[in-house]
C-alpha cells in the first residue's frame, strides 16, 4: 500500500507544480512544461497504479507501440501544419502579399 501512497504524493506534487507554473511568465515554454509534467504523471500512473512495472514485456510492447504511433501522428502533423504557408493577396493581406501563416479568420 505504501507504494500507492508515494505515487499519489508524487502525483499531487506534480499537479500543484503544474498549477503554479501556469501563473509563471514562461511564454512559449508553458505548453511544453505543462505537457511534459502531464507525461511524467501518466508514466507514474501506468507503472505503479496500473502495475505495468511488474508485468511481462508483451504488455509493455502492446502499450508503447500505441504511444509510438501517436507520436508519429502528432509529430508529422505538426511538421506539416508548422511548415504550411497561406498566400494572401495584396488587397487582403496586411503584410502586402507576402506569404504568411495566417489564422482561419485572415482567409475571410
Amino acid at each position, binding site marked *: 500500500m505504501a507504494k500507492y501512497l508515494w505515487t499519489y504524493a508524487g502525483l499531487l506534487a506534480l499537479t500543484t507544480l503544474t498549477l503554479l507554473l*501556469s501563473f509563471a511568465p514562461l511564454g512559449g515554454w508553458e505548453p511544453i512544461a505543462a505537457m511534459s509534467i502531464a507525461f511524467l504523471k501518466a508514466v507514474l500512473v501506468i507503472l505503479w497504479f496500473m502495475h505495468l512495472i511488474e508485468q511481462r514485456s508483451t504488455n509493455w510492447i502492446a502499450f508503447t507501440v*500505441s504511444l509510438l504511433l501517436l507520436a508519429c501522428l502528432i509529430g508529422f502533423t505538426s511538421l506539416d501544419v508548422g511548415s504550411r504557408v497561406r498566400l494572401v493577396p495584396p488587397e487582403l493581406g496586411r503584410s502586402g502579399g507576402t506569404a504568411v501563416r495566417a489564422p482561419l479568420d485572415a482567409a475571410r
Partner: protein
Amino acid sequence: MAESLDAASEAAPELESHFGDLEQQTHAAQFGMWVFLATEVLFFGVLFTLYIAYRMTEGAAFRAGIQRTDLVLGTANTYILLTASLFVACAVGAIRESRSRLASHLLFGAAACGVLFVFLKLLEYLHHIEDGLLAGPYYASSLPTAGTRVFWSLYYLMTGLHLVHVSAGVVLLLWIWHRTRRGDFSARYHTPLELGGMYWHFVDIVWLFLWPMFYLMH
C-alpha cells in the same frame, strides 16, 4: 485428458477450459486489456492531434478560450480523479492481501469520486451555457472568430468524450464493487477488479492531459 481438465476447473472455478492454468489466463486478460487501452490511446490521440494542429495556427484564440474555462472546477476535478485512482490502486493492493471488505469500501469511494467529477463537469457546462457558449449555432454571436469557435468545439468534444468514459467507469466500478462485496474475488483470483482498475486509471491519464490543455496553457 478430459478428466484432468475437469479436475482443474473444479480446483479453480474461474478457469476457462482453453487455458492451462489461472496464471496463463490472467496474463492473457491483462494483455487483452493493454491492447484495448492502446486502441483507446489512438481514439483520443486523433483529437489531441487536432488540438495541437489548431493550437499552432490559432494560438491567440485558444489562449483567450482558456481564460474563459473554470480553473477552480477543472483543478478540483483533477485532484478528485487522482484520489479516485489512489482508491482503486489501494483496492487492488487490499484484495491481493485478501482484505476484500477494505477493497469494497475503497471501490465505493472511487465510484463516489467519479460521480462528483461528473456532477462538477455538468455544473461547468451549465455555466458555459449561461455565458452563451453552448455549442453549434448558439455560440455564433458570442464568439465572433472562427478560431474561438474551433476551441470551444474541441473543448466540448474532448471533455464530453472523456465524460462519457468517466460515466462508463463509474458503472464499471459499481459492478466490481458489487462483486467484491459478494465475495467473488480473492487474493488468488481478482482479474476483473484489476482490469476495471486499469480502465479507470486510463481515464484518469486522459484528464491529466486535458486539464492543462483546456484550463492552464494560457
